[in-house]
């Protein structure tokens, strides 16, 4: 891997972000709106019922961590779509760039954006709700890492689908996280889901992250099973995503889609 190439692609994305108001909204506006709505709703819920102790920190942590997965996935996809939209695809794919460098750059910017989002939302959570996300301690880093990796896997798979199916697959860049949200048990425990959805939740890394997070907030401890399950599933899905991407990339070259979508 040539890190100079990765640096160049990251630099390109940072230039794009610095010139595009909508990208700033992705980092600052939507996450903040999420935080405000879910935060105030959880305060209201605490007023009408106290049956779920620590609901406020649970929901606030959940919305902050959900944004980690969402941003990591979305940035990987949008970095690719930027090249399609600006008709820069041929310049990129005809350059000495390995697919792993291209994807790696998307991962780096995904990490950067998710990190900034956590910092911004964490500060605002302290300001509006007197909640300190750092109370999660070192576990925060483990939860963050697992969600980042799941976001990367989804982003890589969706990018592969763009290569294979072209513009009709673009909507997936925004839709895919929400397909996984119900079984990720972001805002509620897995056991309230119907049995068949519980089965799906068990094989979703994010559900273990959010279950672990709730356990940590309510008891102060997190069952290591959740960590091992999330890490194991993430490794499995990342391998599957990489295989799918490679297969879609080769298929796109065979069918001429790389050149076609670039035109």
């Amino acid at each position: 891997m040539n890190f100079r190439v990765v640096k160049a692609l990251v630099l390109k994305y940072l230039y794009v972000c610095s010139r595009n108001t909508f990208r700033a909204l992705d980092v600052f506006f939507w996450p903040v709106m999420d935080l405000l709505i879910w935060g105030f709703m959880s305060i209201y819920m605490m007023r009408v019922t106290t049956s779920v102790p620590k609901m406020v920190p649970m929901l606030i942590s959940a919305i902050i961590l959900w944004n980690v997965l969402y941003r990591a996935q979305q940035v990987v996809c949008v970095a690719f779509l930027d090249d399609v939209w600006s008709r820069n695809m041929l310049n990129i794919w005809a350059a000495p760039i390995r697919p792993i460098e291209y994807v790696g750059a998307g991962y780096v910017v995904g990490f950067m954006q998710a990190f900034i989002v956590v910092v911004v939302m964490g500060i605002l959570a302290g300001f509006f709700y007197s909640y300190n996300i750092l109370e999660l301690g070192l576990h925060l880093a483990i939860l963050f890492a697992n969600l980042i990796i799941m976001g990367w896997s989804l982003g890589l798979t969706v990018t592969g689908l763009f290569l294979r199916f072209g513009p009709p697959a673009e909507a997936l860049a925004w839709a895919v996280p929400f397909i996984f949200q119900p079984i990720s048990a972001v805002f509620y425990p897995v056991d309230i889901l119907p049995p068949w959805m519980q089965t799906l939740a068990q094989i979703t890394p994010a559900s273990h992250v959010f279950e672990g997070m709730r356990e940590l907030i309510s008891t102060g401890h997190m069952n290591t099973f959740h960590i091992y399950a999330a890490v194991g599933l993430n490794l499995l899905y990342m391998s599957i995503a990489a295989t799918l991407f490679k297969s879609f990339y080769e298929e796109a070259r065979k069918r001429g889609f790389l050149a076609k979508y670039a035109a």
Partner: protein
Amino acid sequence: MSENETVVEIKNLSKEFKGKFAVKDLSFDVKKGEILGLLGANGAGKTTTIHMLLNLITPTSGSIRIFGKDFAQSRIEILSRMNFGSAYQFLPYNLKVIENLRVFAEIYSVDDAKERIAELLDLFELSHLKNNSTGMLSSGEQTRLNLCKALLNKPDLLLLDEPTASLDPDQADKVRKIILDLQRRSGMSVINTSHNMIDVHELCDRILFMQTGTVIAQGTATEIMDTYQSQSLEEVFIMIARQNSNSPNTISNN
């Protein structure tokens, strides 16, 4: 690399899409320092050929060797020594001119990037626009910027897709002179597809006329005009495109 060294060697190259051949049994080579023109009407297979040379499309059969290597083993090494410029491709529009060139200089691992960028911007008369947003450039300026990108790494092989389309005659003439000058000084090889017969006549040492994916004539511009008993390449082009020629035998200067 000696003057007679083969830079590009294509043998029996074919590409089939859904049962139809875009390129069929194409063979040619390009020597070091040679400028080869690919001519043909729309759908003749020129762009598919260029895309296969850039490893964007996998051939159905046949082989491509560039600098004596093939893409399966040496993709990055080959692409590092090549570059590509097209009037129909753009650099990210919301980046400044200088930023786009910085990004590609890094991608191509250009060591003296700052000096090289300044030199190319000056050469293509874009220095005064370096801090402008790329999206605000005229189409002619964007084409020249793309050529700057294409020359950043001092390529040994340059692929050009209609490099002077969207340029006014004055700029087109300047660009042709720049390409010729750089080619003579550096000895780079060039494959140039164009519909502009002045480009082809002035730039190309040898021309391949393509039709429905195959080469139907090749030689120097004069040889081709003589064979088709025509006064200009444009006449030959129209004749071939309308398929009203008597299909003379292929000329080969190999």
